């Protein structure tokens, strides 16, 4: 989802260097860097901003001996805080018991996502480690250097004789000090122009298999708080009434009965619906039932998914509106192909469905400033949006970056939906009156921002020798970026998030064409964990498997024969196959499938084993996953993200589907929209391919390969590829 930064692409750094900045704060030593971009206008605005903002640092050491790390990256469960803290701690040599990580914001020069050019702060595209890799290690190293310099001066010994370990600075003479004792003095030391980083062979934290997350305990005893748990003086809870169809608007509403209910504070119209404000959640919910709304549905989307998919299937057989890749001459290659495989794939709308439903809290203060609490996955944008709705300027908006109970992309929403609701409700209530807007599960599921539905019309041809000579994929569906502030990223009719995973196919296929037809449907869509690869990987990897079968070739060998120029793809595939015992026979009734996919510069291969059961059903028993994400920072978290990505992706392809009839969403809750449950979770083994390449992400890339791997195992069992998802609903009649 880097693409929304497109309008800033012009400031991609052509030359980078880090300037250290350190200073005394009321708290102690604060160390920040600013990334000097080639675009000098950004560099010039940096200093003023740094001074104005309290979150001016990456690392702060307080007199109380705490190490506070200000994270540019948002924590939604994927472990970004832990990863960033690992980078800092590697260089700083602190004690993990000292560490707190806080979400930083309001300083693009410091917190801009450098993986995307640095011009906006945002989390996504699995870039948290790649964008932090250099600057957070440098920050840790600089803080350490300043502490050492302060100790050297205080003890009058050469800096080179000073040792630092586990949060203690010491000298052979017996002198020692805690970081907190040196913090103030360190802040006055001359700042080094640059600091060397530890060489790889000296790493103790990065790559450590035994290092555990610093924040797990609070997630086992109820102590970890999320936005839903906020408590503060005078806080009210609001629940939302949203339009019944996308595009419908409030004609009028009558809140008389609701307001008569004891405990209902107010009923407020916001730009996105009606907020019913009560003294507690239950009262607000009861009040909500009493509000009568008349909707104007003139501009509402009236289609259901059946009509939408029928239109897509028809459009998929026509010429594509735009061409994303065109190698060789596909029509000519098909004309001379020995064997052709073709068909349509259908992918339904999907919901992020994080267990913490969307929420945010806001307070307009007496002085006109605004506090906003929430899952601020795109802080710059939310600060601006809150300012606009709150009638002030962004510098008057304080963000409180809360950890969230999941996101999977949903907390990075360009229209700042729940933030707008919270700020406009707070504004209606008046100054000094904080309010938390809490969506119910039904709000969340019917609130839009889905993974778009897609149809792929695919065609592939083999020559006499069984080589793939041509592949054509025409993708039809909505654009995630269309109509958003990042629409500028759409070039020549191609939203790259619609075609990623198909256009960068690694296989050597001489004639390859990818077309895209972007549709106009008024159902709000969004990036959903691994974005385009959620559907392209399935289409392409099941097709490749079918081609292997048609060519009478082993699926692993067949792929490897086309991966000559892609050693990292080939390596993960080989590791997964070898660890899974690909060549060993399976017991009766058991089948294997394989899939390989690169997304967001991380390479993942899965081998799955399934067992067929009597009721024409099947169970996924085992998944062997191999991943290459460059340098492994937190190996156990890489495994956790692969395990989680596999479970998340498996639920989706087996049984998740959001449908609409007459413009109304059919599913409201987890009884009808059904994420994976524990009894469906396979055994998972994750193998990390050793690498010294720079780190890439793991939050998303675990998702794409599991679907096609399962489908390929089913094809091995039944001879048929399931081209319409979700699998369970569409596999009836498929007898082995």
């Amino acid at each position, binding site marked *: 989802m880097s693409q929304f930064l497109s309008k800033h692409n012009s400031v991609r750094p052509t030359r980078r260097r880090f300037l250290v900045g350190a200073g005394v704060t009321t708290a102690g030593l604060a160390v920040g860097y600013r990334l000097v971009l080639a675009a000098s206008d950004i560099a010039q605005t940096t200093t003023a901003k740094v001074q104005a903002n309290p979150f001016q640092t990456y690392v702060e050491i307080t007199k109380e001996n705490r190490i506070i790390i200000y994270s540019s990256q948002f924590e939604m469960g994927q*472990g970004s805080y832990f990863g960033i803290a690992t980078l800092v701690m590697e260089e700083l040599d602190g004690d993990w018991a000292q560490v707190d990580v806080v979400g930083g914001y309001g300083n693009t020069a410091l917190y801009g996502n450098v993986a995307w050019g640095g011009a906006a702060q945002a989390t996504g595209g699995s870039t948290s480690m790649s964008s932090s890799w250099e600057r957070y290690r440098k920050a840790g190293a600089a803080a350490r250097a300043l502490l050492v310099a302060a100790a050297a001066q205080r003890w009058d010994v050469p800096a080179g004789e000073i040792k630092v370990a586990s949060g203690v600075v010491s000298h052979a003479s017996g002198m020692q000090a805690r970081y907190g004792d040196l913090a103030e003095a360190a802040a006055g030391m001359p700042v080094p122009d640059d600091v060397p980083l530890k060489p790889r062979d000296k790493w103790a934290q990065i790559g450590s298999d035994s290092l*555990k997350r610093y924040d797990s305990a609070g*997630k*086992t005893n*109820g102590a970890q708080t999320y936005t839903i748990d906020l408590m503060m003086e005078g806080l009210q809870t609001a629940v939302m009434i949203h339009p019944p169809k996308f595009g419908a608007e409030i004609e009028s509403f009558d809140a008389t009965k609701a307001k008569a209910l004891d405990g209902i504070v107010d009923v407020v119209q916001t730009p996105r619906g009606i907020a019913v404000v009560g003294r507690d959640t239950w009262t607000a919910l009861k009040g909500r039932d009493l509000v009568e709304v008349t909707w104007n549905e003139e501009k509402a989307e009236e289609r259901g998914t059946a009509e939408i998919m029928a239109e897509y299937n028809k459009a998929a057989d026509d010429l594509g509106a735009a061409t994303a890749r065109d190698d060789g001459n596909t029509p000519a290659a098909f004309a001379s192909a020995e064997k052709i495989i073709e068909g349509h794939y259908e992918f339904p709308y999907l919901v992020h469905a994080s*267990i913490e439903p969307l929420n945010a809290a806001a307070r307009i203060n007496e002085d006109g400033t605004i506090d906003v609490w929430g899952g601020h996955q795109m802080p710059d944008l939310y600060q601006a949006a809150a300012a606009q709705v709150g009638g002030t300027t962004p510098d008057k908006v304080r963000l409180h970056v809360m950890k969230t109970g999941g996101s999977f992309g949903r907390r990075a929403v360009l229209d700042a939906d729940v933030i707008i609701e919270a700020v406009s409700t707070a504004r209606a209530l008046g100054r000094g009156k904080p309010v938390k807007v809490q969506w*119910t*599960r039904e709000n969340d599921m019917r609130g839009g921002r889905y993974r778009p539905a897609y149809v792929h019309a695919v065609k592939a041809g083999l020559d006499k020798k069984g080589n793939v000579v041509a592949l054509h994929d025409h993708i039809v569906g909505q654009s995630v970026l269309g109509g958003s502030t990042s629409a500028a990223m759409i070039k020549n009719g191609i939203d790259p998030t619609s075609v990623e995973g198909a256009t960068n196919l690694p296989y050597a296929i001489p004639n390859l064409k990818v077309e895209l037809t972007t549709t106009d449907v008024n159902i709000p869509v969004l990036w959903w964990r691994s974005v385009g690869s959620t559907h392209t990987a399935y289409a392409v990897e099941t097709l490749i498997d079918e081609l292997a079968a048609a060519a009478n070739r082993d699926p692993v060998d067949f792929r490897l024969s086309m991966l000559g120029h892609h050693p990292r793809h080939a390596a993960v595939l080989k590791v997964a196959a070898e660890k899974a015992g690909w060549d060993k026979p399976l017991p009766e009734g058991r089948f294997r499938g394989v899939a390989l996919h690169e997304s967001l510069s991380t390479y993942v291969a899965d081998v799955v084993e399934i067992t067929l059961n009597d009721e024409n059903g099947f169970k996924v028993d085992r998944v062997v996953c191999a991943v290459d994400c460059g340098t492994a920072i937190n190996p156990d978290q890489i495994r956790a993200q692969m395990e*989680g990505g596999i479970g998340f992706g498996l639920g989706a392809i087996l049984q998740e589907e959001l449908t609409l009839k007459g413009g109304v969403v059919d599913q409201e809750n987890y009884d009808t929209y059904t994420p994976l449950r524990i009894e469906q979770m396979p055994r998972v083994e994750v193998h990390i391919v050793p690498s010294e390449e720079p780190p890439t992400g793991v939050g998303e890339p675990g998702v794409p390969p599991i679907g096609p791997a399962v489908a390929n195992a089913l094809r091995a069992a039944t001879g048929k590829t399931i081209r319409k998802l979700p699998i369970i609903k569409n596999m009836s009649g498929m007898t082995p």
Partner: protein
Amino acid sequence: MVAFTLNGEARTLDVDPEMPLLWAVRDVIGLTGTKFGCGLAQCGACTVHVNGMPTRSCQTAVGDIEGASITTIEGVSGKIGETVQAVWAEFDVPQCGYCQSGQIMSAVALLTETPKPTDDDIDSAMSGNLCRCATYHRIRAAIHETANRLET
């Protein structure tokens, strides 16, 4: 007025008797470890123990808990509960952590009833607890490990 025991302490609540225990515990009493996920007994995030039984507090009315003994995640104690929590952290089970209060309440109830659960026992006891981060693999491993540690 409803009188009950919460985490070992006698409490009374003077609220709408229809108010789900979930909202009473969170909004009125101020213990926020018990989470809201669906309000429909579908996700298990709100799981508490009512007289030792794992119960969805979103579907339990305050009016129905007169005299009952309620334990929330904040009140987990004893050898089983503490071992579960320790192993959970050691295995880095939580990702976002949001579902984990409910997971732990269900796991403690399971291990109390069935000290040496099989995979099937785990699946049926934990099936009502969704984890959107899909930490299931580690939940299973952590339950087995807890059982092993408690045995010795």
